[in-house]
Structure formats: C-alpha cells, structure tokens
C-alpha cells in the first residue's frame, strides 16, 4: 500500500482548496451533460492532503450516514484508491450519488476544521463531497476490485418498498448482512427520485444505474411495475416477508391554489422533471413530449425548483425565472445549485408570491400575476414570514409555469394498510430507527419526514437496516 508522505499540519494548511473542474456556463446551459467534471487523481490527492486528520472528527458526526471521512480521505492522500473505495462503500451504499447531491455545506463540510476562519482569513473546508465523488467514481470504474465478500445467507427475507435513495441504501446494507432482499418499485426503472427527479446534468442516469447494478450484483432483487397499495398491499407483503421497509418517498404534488393553475402550460415540478428525466422527453427519439416554454417561471426556492429552472434553460427558454416569496438568504436549495443557476443565466424574483396564473383566449399560460412581499415577524419555522405589500401587483411574463412548492403524502400504501399509524398529514409515524406501529414494518425517508433530502432518506435507510437486522436476529 502506498504510504502517504508525512505532511506537517503547516504543510497541509498551506494547500488551497482545489476547484472542481466544470463545464463552462454558456456551454452547459444548452446541454444536459453533467456540470461538474470531477477531480483528476492529482487534484484529489492534493485536496485530500488538506485534511488535518482530526483526532475527534466532527465531519463524521455531521454525516447522516456516518461515513468515516478521515479514513477514506487519508487513503486517497496516500494514493490507495482501492482502500479508499472499500472504506467508503462499507459506510455508504450510494457514494456516487451522495458525492453529487448532498448539501455538504450544511453537513460534513460545515463542521470541518479547515472551514474555520484563521488569523483573519476565512476558512475553506476540505472538499469532502468532491473527494467522495472522486473515490465513488473510481469504485464504479473498478467493480471487480471493490466487490465485498459474499456474506453467509441468513435465510431471512426482507421486502423494501421503493427504489429511491432510502430503499436502495437499506437494500445494500441488508444484502451485505446476508439477508435476502427484494425491492418493489412502481416505475419501470430503478432509482426513485434519483431517476425521475434529479436531472441528468446534476446526476447522470448512468451513474444511478451503476449503483443499482452493484446492488443487484450483491444479490438484491428488484421488481419493477409493482405499486404497493395497488398491486400488493403492505399487509400482504408483511405476510410473505420477515420484515418490510417502506421508503415510498413523497407523493402528490402540491399546487398553489390560485386561479389559473389548470391552464395548459402549468406543470407540477414532478411532472415536468419526470417527463424529461425518466421519460427522456428532451431526446429526439423519445415518444413522451414536454412543452418547451420560451419564458418559464418556476415557483419555489428549493433544489427541485433549481432543477426545474435549469432544465427549462436547457430546453431552450430565453428567460427562466425563479419566483420565491422570501429573500435570497432563505433559499432552501443547495448553495452550489443556486450558484450554478445564476451562472447559467437564471433570473431570480425574490420576495415575490404568485396570485394568479394568467391565461390567453386558448387556455394557455400568458403570465404569472404576482405580488411583492416583505419579511415580517418570524413564523413557526423560525424564518421571517413573508407579508404581501398592498398595491404591489405585477405580472411576470411567462408562457409556462412550473410549480415546485412541495408535495403531500401519497395515500396509496397507507389507505390499504389500516394498522399502520399515520400522522394528520398522512405521513407514517416511525421512531428514530424507523419502527412503525406494525411489528416488523419499518419506514423512512420522505414518507416519514415529509419532503427532505436524498441523504436524510439514506440515513433513515441505514438506521432502519440496522434495526431490521437486529429484529431479524432477535432475542427469540
């Protein structure tokens, strides 16, 4: 194994954060290729050498799936990519995904010691996410070198409902522990939100497929076109399997409840992104169509809104505008996405709330009537509540509107499982380890949390897998 050259703290501190190579904004805003190009090995080793190898690393605690960050980074710094990949894959079933879509700036990188200001200089954390991505992509390119040892089969069968990030993580963990895992997926392809939600330019679909393929090689079975709540009920699966993990994700899109939302040219972000990401509507050979707005207004300020507005830009919009009712500082989207969107020419209307979608004589969108807002007293979420300014109405010109303001629970599974306790919003009640009101049935991700992130769903999947394993090995 290659030895890391011994570097003093001072030498490590002297290395600047290595920038992520990216496609030029003017080029990428008209294609669907991935924006970030990934570190070279040389860049990765240099960046890895910036890690101070803290005795009590805060980054591990900042990671929802508890990746041993200093360990894999140390192996990268030493040039031992195989060791780094094995270490990373042991902790994280989907590192190619998390290395690309995690909000590192509010997790591992937020607590990195290198991010603290030193002697008046602002700090810059180790690029943990970019290093994770580098190692994960290396692992995907060398599947034979990183295959985990075949576990002893336990003879226990686990059903996982949903092949999104939570379900796939639990599947990977449980398969590694020797359980016989079957994943049920409603769509014709695996990945859930990784596939239908997150665009190609942020998370290439080949990468998702690679991660899925690795799980299948580990022995995970995936049954597509199976809608739990319709094709099978949860109680039926509970009968057939020793345990069940429910990770069906967020469900039905929420609309704004303003006039004009059923005009042609108004999409829920789910539909707009699904048409493009899952059905390939941007490709000339795909049968599924998608409208190509020239002036597209996207309502919302989260990652889904950024994905939608950047997709609109790539589909030829001359103007692609985010309409958000709070100010820039409250934007819930990942910082890098907002930055990329701005570089690509996306416009922002902050402190702006839609009041009506305006239509033309033929039922098509002709504009988005809005009102200006100002921030008032803090609300329940601790953020300052936006309040409409009287008389400030104006129209954002638009021929297409995409609504990205969230989702509510999909009732298909819960309606057909009367013993499963849900809260008043329809989400499943589960404890920190995912235990639900039905013994042997666990749940996690957005169907428990409401809309959250990929990595939180994965954390739920990992914790639930540990709890399921304990349940299956149980005292009796």
């Amino acid at each position, binding site marked *: 194994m290659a030895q890391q050259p011994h570097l003093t703290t001072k030498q490590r501190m002297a290395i600047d954060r290595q920038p992520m190579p990216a496609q030029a904004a003017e080029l990428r805003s008209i294609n669907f290729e991935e924006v970030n190009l990934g570190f070279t090995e040389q860049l990765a080793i240099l960046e890895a050498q910036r890690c101070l190898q803290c005795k009590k690393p805060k980054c591990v605690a900042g990671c929802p799936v508890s990746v041993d960050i200093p360990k894999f980074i140390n192996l990268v710094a030493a040039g031992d990519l195989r060791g780094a990949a094995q270490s990373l894959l042991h902790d994280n079933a989907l590192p190619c995904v998390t290395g690309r879509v995690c909000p590192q700036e509010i997790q591992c990188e937020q607590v990195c010691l290198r991010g603290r200001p030193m002697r008046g200089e602002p700090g810059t954390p180790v690029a943990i996410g970019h290093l994770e991505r580098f190692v994960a992509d290396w692992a995907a390119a060398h599947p034979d070198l990183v295959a985990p040892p075949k576990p002893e089969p336990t003879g226990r069968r686990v059903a996982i409902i949903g092949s999104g990030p939570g379900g796939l993580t639990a599947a990977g963990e449980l398969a590694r522990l020797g359980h016989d895992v079957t994943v049920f997926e*409603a*769509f*014709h392809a695996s990945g859930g939100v990784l596939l*239908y939600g997150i665009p190609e330019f942020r998370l290439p679909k080949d990468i998702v497929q690679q991660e899925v393929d690795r799980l299948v090689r580990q022995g995970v079975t995936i049954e*597509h*076109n*199976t*809608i739990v709540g*319709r*094709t*099978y009920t949860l109680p039926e699966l509970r009968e057939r399997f020793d345990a069940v993990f429910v990770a069906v994700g967020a*469900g*039905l*899109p929420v*609309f704004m409840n303003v006039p004009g*939302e*059923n005009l*042609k040219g108004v*999409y*829920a972000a*789910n*539909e707009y992104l*699904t*048409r493009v990401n899952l*059905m*390939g509507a941007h*490709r*000339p*050979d*795909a*049968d*599924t*169509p998608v*409208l190509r707005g020239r002036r597209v207004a996207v309502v919302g300020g989260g990652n889904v809104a950024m994905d939608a507005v950047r997709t609109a830009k790539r589909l030829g919009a001359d103007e692609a505008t985010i309409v958000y009712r709070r100010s820039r500082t409250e934007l819930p989207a990942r910082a890098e996405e907002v930055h990329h969107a701005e570089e690509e020419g996306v416009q922002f209307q902050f402190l702006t709330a839609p009041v009506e979608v305006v239509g033309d004589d033929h*039922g098509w969108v002709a504009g988005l009537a809005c009102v200006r807002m100002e921030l008032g007293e803090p609300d329940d979420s601790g953020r300052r509540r936006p309040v409409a300014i009287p008389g400030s109405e104006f129209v954002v010109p638009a021929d297409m509107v995409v609504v990205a303001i969230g989702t509510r629970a*999909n*009732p*298909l599974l819960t309606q057909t499982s009367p013993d499963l306790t849900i809260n008043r919003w329809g989400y499943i009640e589960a404890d920190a380890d995912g235990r639900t009101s039905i013994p042997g049935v666990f749940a996690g991700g957005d169907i428990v949390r409401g809309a959250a992130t990929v990595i939180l769903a994965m954390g739920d999947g990992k914790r639930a897998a540990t709890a399921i394993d304990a349940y299956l090995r149980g005292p009796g």
Partner: protein
Amino acid sequence: MHAIRSKTLLSPNVTRFVVEAPRIAEIRKPGQFVIVRLGPGAERIPLTIADADPAAGTITLVIQAVGKSTHDLVDLDPGDAIRDIAGPLGRPTELLPAGHAVCVGGGVGTAVVFPIAQALAAAGVRVTSVIGGRSKEWVIFADELRGTGDVVVCTDDGSAGRKGFVTQALAELCEGGGIDEVYAVGPVPMMRACAELTRPYGIKTTVSLNSIMVDGTGMCGGCRVGIGDTSQYACVDGPEFDGHAVDFDLLIDRLTTYREFEQDALARRSQPGQCLEGDR
C-alpha cells in the same frame, strides 16, 4: 415481459389483446387500468382493463390506435411481448348494489364499460347497455354485453341496431323511469351529453376520465381534472367521477395540450424510410 396471447381486430381502429399479467388478472376490479410501456424511449400508456382470466393469468386490453404510441402497440402480434405493465391502477368502480343500471358505451369506451356491466350483472343488478358507433363495423363488445342484460345498439347510419346517437336511446330510458344509475364511458362530448341528459332526472351518472397521465400513481399531477370546486387526480382519485360535477370544458381543453407533438409524431411515423436516432 408480458407475452401477447391473442390479437383481434374489433373495429377498423380498435384492437383487442389478451396479454399475460397473472397478478393483475388475479386482483383487478372493474374500472381499473394499467400503464403499458413498450420499451426504451416509449411512452407510458394508460389502458383500461377490459376483462381478465385469473385461471389463465391474462388480462384483456382494448386499444384504439390514435397516436404514434398506440399505433406502435397495435403493430405487435401474438408471440411478441409488452415490456412493462404496471397496475392495477385507479379506484375500482363503485357498483350500484341493486336496482337498474344503464351502461352507455361509445366507441372504444364500450370496452371500458363492459367490466362494469359484467360486475353489476354478477351482483344481481339489472343492466341495460346502450352502445354506439359510426356504423356497424365500429360497434364493439355487443355480444359480450348481451351476457349481462339488454343491449341497445345505436349507429349513426342505422347499419346496425337503431339509427341515431346513444344519447337518444338513453333519453328514452330515463323518460321511462326506474333507472338508478348510469355509467357512461366514451368520447368526452358523449360523456358530457349523457351527464347533461340525466341531470334533470337526478340520476347518478358515473363517467371515466381519460386525462393525460405519466406515472398513474399520483406522483406527477398531470391528470388533474376539475370536479366541482376541486382539482382531483384522475389516476388516484378516479378515473371514475360524478359526471354532474366534472368540468368537461377543462378536460377537453387539457387533452389538446400535446396536439402538435402528437400530429408531428404520427406524421414522422408514417414517413417511409425514416431513420430515428439510436434505440436508447
């Protein structure tokens, strides 16, 4: 993969497939549908389950070839297979428990109304079916429906049954009294006419809406329809709704959203020697 067991041309543009789908055959109920996808690049097509044979593990799909995707589908033959079939989707029909039901079917909608008539008859409800088409060769499922009760066939030109629209026959039945519920499935104008006709009689009228869908599980919201003051999703709240509450104008308008794309796709399909980019 779902093998096609048999294929029958029912009318000049309506094809019946019997397809292997054992789980769906076992549990499907009247009013439910499936989503079919032929392979990479293909659309997800919602299709009502017209019939099922649990013992044989097959379901019956009746397809009207209108656009590129449905033409691709009906080009398949026995021995071919359909790559993806997801379902059963949608809420089952709320069946009248007893009394006299009229099942109205227009064109390919007759295949949708058939399983409803079948289930009603099996439950002891008196069923009268009123079905129609342009002319004799466009009338489908008449023999099957005769197994569930009386059948009134209407054709525009009088080449089979009586001359005229299904609404005329329905009007006479309503006038005669004793009708407890009407189930009407067919072209949107027909469903609207049926609902308008039964409204003054206060006869509950259920219609099945074919709004544009992608996933069919409530995820995309594309299939939203106006029901009374609310927006509902045809895939999870329907596809059947109270015809007296449906905003038919909105449905008709939203169905035109992709008309240009559809015409374009169909035109490209019929061009001989057309070479599409790689099959991905």
